[in-house]
């Protein structure tokens, strides 16, 4: 903790009458929200939404087949063929695209060099999708055993885990960026 206060950089002072866009925090917020809106406008188009849903459904069924979990795919609905035999509808929230959009927006908005942002986004892409597939596979494993535990895992654990995913990745990237700078 002591080291942290020692390495603390001076807060940026705001002069009266200065253009708010020149204040780093406002610029960060403006860029982040703008990027987020642009990406969401693109992703919210039905053709893009359908593509992501289909892609997630097909790839998930492929992974489940490898793990010997039998399912039948109809459109974006996956039906468990054994255990509780429940149906899963893959919706945009299941595709992992929203955490990725948040991370891309934060990394683009945060003041840093293009290369660091590029590596950050590239790693975020793999990190988010890997995490999402792990989440989906585990949900299927739980759902095979119990619908009740599936509801708890789906709503409580995984919703919360996305918060930890984003916060942990973003702060890890900030630390990594600083370490690279110090080297």
């Amino acid at each position, binding site marked *: *903790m002591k*080291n*942290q*206060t020692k*390495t*603390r*950089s*001076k*807060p*940026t002072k*705001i002069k009266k009458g200065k253009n708010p866009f020149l*204040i*780093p*925090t406002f*610029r*960060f*917020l403006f860029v*982040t*929200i703008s990027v*987020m*809106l642009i990406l*969401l*406008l693109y*992703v*919210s*188009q*039905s053709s893009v*939404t359908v593509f992501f849903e289909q892609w997630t459904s097909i790839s998930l069924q492929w992974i489940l087949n490898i793990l010997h979990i039998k399912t039948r795919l109809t459109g974006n609905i996956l039906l468990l063929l054994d255990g509780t035999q429940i149906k899963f509808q893959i919706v*945009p*929230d299941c595709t992992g695209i*929203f*955490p990725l*959009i*948040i991370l891309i*927006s*934060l990394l683009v908005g945060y*003041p*840093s*060099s293009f290369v660091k942002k590029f590596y950050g986004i590239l790693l975020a892409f793999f990190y988010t999708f890997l995490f999402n597939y792990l989440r989906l596979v585990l949900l299927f494993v739980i759902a095979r055993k119990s619908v009740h535990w599936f*509801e*708890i895992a789906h*709503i*409580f654990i995984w*919703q*919360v885990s*996305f*918060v*930890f995913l*984003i*916060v*942990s990745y*973003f*702060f*890890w990237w*900030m*630390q990594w960026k*600083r370490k690279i*700078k110090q080297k």
Partner: protein
Amino acid sequence: MEKKNKTEITPFPIAFDFISFFKPFFLGFSIAFLILLPFTSLLSTGKVVIIRWIISLLFRNNPPYIHQIPFYRSISISGPTFFGLCFAHSKTKPMSSFFSKKNLIPFSLAVVLLWILELFGNLLEIIVTKMKISSFLPNFTLAFFLSVGSISFPLLLWFLLFFRLPRATGT
């Protein structure tokens, strides 16, 4: 050289140590989440009452049907996220200076704002679905206010508050 220094300026007056920041965040989030959990049902009922009232004003003749949300589906994660971030931030300085009277007002306002944004998202979702505009607008509204907003709004609001706090306390 001057240009290089300019790009390296960080708006956040803290050198983040990932582990020492994430641990209190996790603790703060868990505390807030566990405190809110017993009140989730009450909060969702309150939210539905407000939404029904606004909807009845907007669609006097033919209001859409709104069902009561099961308690586990109405868990709000934006509040605990915001509290977790503020809690972790408070660990970087004496807690009393962070949660001082001056800072408690913007903190409380931010919590209320987060709740209003969530309510607004639910309301917009119902309106655009009722009006059957297209699939694009409900998709976008839902994604912005609920899916993305529930995580990004507290984070961005914390950044805004975080920046203001040193000024308020005179550091």
